[in-house]
């Protein structure tokens, strides 16, 4: 009798096992969220797993009760289960199911708070973070390195083991900057600069894309983040700075066109193209939104502990 009864939930379990198997097997690499390559993605994954386990407990409890109820109390002739049409309350049971979810949610809530605050701060590190100013354009990405004085389009190079502070803005409708293997996303918004720090613990090429729809070419807003050793990064920056061609205002204006482009590398870039504090917010006549007469209207959202 019993095996028959549990046939359905059993099948579901099989399914779960199969999915879990798939995830851990060869093609697991493609599950980018589950394969973080840096501390930020790692922390986020930890929370996902913790919350999933807690929720799995709720789901399991509900499923067991549910399948038991619908099988045991099915209306069929000869069912011997007790029939109590007026049974409508049970104090302890009811207290239990307020308390059970509350406890599980508390277990999730505490690390959520901690991690949210932790991710808002640059970690204390021996090295100074590398700052990269990111501008989303329609439909491409511009990366500018104020420290190295180089700029790239649709790809970026970062050193491994060093926190990278991305300062995000847009000279276009909103987009979202997302490199899933390094960590979660943050919007790029015109007139605002939002910070996001990420770090790669091992070298590799990490795919990024825009997470916020912005028109017909938006799915092509992909880019690669190449993580290389700090020395290789220095070499790359030096070489680029000395060999590539500088970006001119004309180049920037070309980027403002509504189209998709390949990658590009520049040895330098016009200061006014990004609303950095260093440039004193003087953004004159360089882009759709950069024509702001009032420089104070740009909101600079600082990290809690700026380097």
């Amino acid at each position, binding site marked *: 009798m019993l095996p028959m009864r549990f046939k359905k939930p059993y099948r579901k379990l099989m399914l779960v096992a199969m999915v879990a198997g798939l995830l851990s097997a060869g093609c697991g690499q493609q599950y*980018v969220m589950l394969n973080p390559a840096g501390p930020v993605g790692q922390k986020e994954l930890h929370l*996902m797993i913790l919350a999933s386990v807690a*929720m799995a407990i709720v789901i399991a409890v509900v499923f067991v009760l*549910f399948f038991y109820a619908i099988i045991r109390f099915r209306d069929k002739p000869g069912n011997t289960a007790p029939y109590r049409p007026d049974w409508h309350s049970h104090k302890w049971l009811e207290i239990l199911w307020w308390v059970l979810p509350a406890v599980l949610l508390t277990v999730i809530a505490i690390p959520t708070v901690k991690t949210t605050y932790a991710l808002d701060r640059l970690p204390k590190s021996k090295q100074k973070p590398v700052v990269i100013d990111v501008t989303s354009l329609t439909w491409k990405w511009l990366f500018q390195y104020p420290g190295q004085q180089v700029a790239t389009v649709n790809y970026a190079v970062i050193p491994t083991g060093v926190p990278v502070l991305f300062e995000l803005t847009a000279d276009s409708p909103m987009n*979202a900057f997302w490199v*899933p293997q390094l960590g979660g996303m943050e919007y790029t918004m015109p007139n605002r600069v939002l910070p996001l720090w990420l770090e790669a613990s091992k070298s590799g090429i990490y795919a990024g894309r825009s997470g916020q*729809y912005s028109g017909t*070419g938006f*799915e092509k807003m992909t880019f690669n983040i190449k993580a290389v050793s700090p020395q290789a990064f220095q070499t790359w920056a030096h070489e680029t700075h000395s060999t590539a061609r500088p970006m001119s205002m004309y180049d920037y204006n070309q980027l403002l066109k509504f189209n998709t482009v390949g990658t590009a590398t520049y040895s330098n870039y016009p200061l006014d193209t990004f609303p950095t504090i260093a440039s004193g917010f003087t953004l004159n006549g360089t882009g759709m939104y950069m024509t702001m007469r009032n420089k104070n209207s740009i909101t600079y959202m600082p990290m*809690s502990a700026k380097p």
Partner: protein
Amino acid sequence: MSFSHLAHTLFPPSVRLPDILLIDVGLVLAGLGILGLLTKTRRWGWLWREWLTTVDHKKIAVMYMIAALVMLLRGGIDAEMLRAQLAAPGAHFMPASQYDEVFTTHGTIMIFFMAMPFIFALFNAVVPLMIGARDVAFPRLNAMSYWLFAAGAILFNLSFIIGGSPNAGWTGYPPYSELLFNPGPGENYYFLSLLIAGMGTTMTGINFLVTIVRMRAPGMTLMRMPLFIWSAMVTSALVLFAFPPLTVALAMSLFDRVFGSSFFTLAHGGMPMMYVNLFWLFGHPEVYILVIPLFGVFSEVVATFSKKQLFGYPIMVVSILAIMFLSYGTWVHHFFTMGAGPGVNVFFGLSTMLIAIPTGVKIFNWIFTMWGGRVQYTVAMLYQLAFIPTFVIGGATGVLLAVVPADYQFHNSYFLIAHFHNVIIGGTLFGLLSALYYWWPKMFGMKLNEQQGKWAFWLFFIGFWVTFTPQYLLGLKGMTRRIYTYPSGLGWHNLNVISTVGALIMGAGFVVLVFNLVWSYVYGERDLTGDPWDGRTLEWSLPSPVPEYNFARIPVVHSRDAWWDMKQKGQSLAALRPEDVHDIEMPKNSPIPFLLGVAFFVVGFGMTFKWWPIVIVGGLGIVLCLLFTGFDYDDHHHLQADTVRQSEASLGRLQG
């Protein structure tokens, strides 16, 4: 304006795609066919008297339901198109610009023009009957709500054949929805149609709130109200406070586009973030507006088909009220990734987790309603049984999204898409279909065929999981929402194929459902008792379909599950004595609501294209309608007691 210019404005290249032209031809033919049929069968007068001018809540319910089913078809076709495009990497099933329009109309239609009217169909069909009333508090306002909704829906659906559809997503975020990036009329259609339909919705909220507060039968105290009534009341309250922010956001966006203001446009210092806040200040309560009525439905269905009282009634009420209050305090969880800072994000993350508790509690109560009962697997109940596990999983993934740092990853990925379809299909759609099977006999006087219904059910249920399980996995693989296409090599292809197959299965479910409705309408088993399910609430004490005046004599309520209680005591409303029947005051039909809808449509259409003379004509129409209705005191009539007696006698409900 030259003719060619006009032609280009109305029919830009985006509406001259072959598939759309084909639909144009089909629509024109169908329209002519319907006009011809109405003329040939001399049905114009009938249409005008019985439907267009009606203020009867039962007929308004039928009109809402037909509209909702038509919109389910339209939104469903959109969905199949989206899935076809995504079935292969690098596909060009349709141009990117059309894909953007289709996902925008899919979301907008399903939420505003399918789910909302379907819910209002249920409110109209059931609420007055369940509380023992003869109509809603403001019958004419009720008709106006309907015609405003209809005007908005027609305006919105016109966009894809005239002028071009909106393409900024169902959320319509600026800057992309600004004139600068979106010069066509599409977004005007979006803002205007939602404004017009939204006004109707707000009025419905007021109407049902007042109806439930003021018009309950004697003896029906708050704590004796059926849970569906509680849910309708809470939903109405949510509507009342959630739609104003939406209306404001839409109106301001419209001003930006049409009159050149800069509330949200950056060019002169506007703030797009303000729109995002206003939208979700509406948007989060809205998702509960979409599901709480179905919580009500499930509470009725589970009790009826378990042959048992609802478990934990007071807790159900408390939890629904808790959800109502909390749902205004969670909206920022839709944009944790917009740099609000850790303090704000944590606050809204925790408030979102908090709201999961009362939601979860309800699940346990439904399970324990079945515990110790006798569970009948009717189609209405099958949807309930599918809902519980599905919704629990959807709620659990919602909690994952409330974990702020995890949401940094999940946001805007297919994981998010899977979450909300999990709750909206598992909760809202399954609930609507459950209600459809449950109350159909009351609305139309015949039962839906159970066998066919089961086919449709299994197709929907299996199709749902086949469609959306892969989407969770695609989210983990980094696939973002609203992308037109993707390259091969990311491991997204197979999962997308599975998802498309699932969508086809659900499509088949829809076809069977429609067949089921039509077949049953013609051949279905008539409901002669008025109480086919051995129900518990007052609507089952009436004959099916219900006479115009609902209750010949208003019942007196002595307990929860009033009708069940009466049956246990051997009482019935059918044994009416002639002297119990008096004259009944009924609202009178009026053409004003329909004309008001037409006037609003004219304004909306004119403003979409900025044709001011048309706007002025429509505006005058609105003013005239309001003046007429304001001074029209002749708005009710008396149904003679004799007429009522005759009618009751013919139903076999009169003694002597």
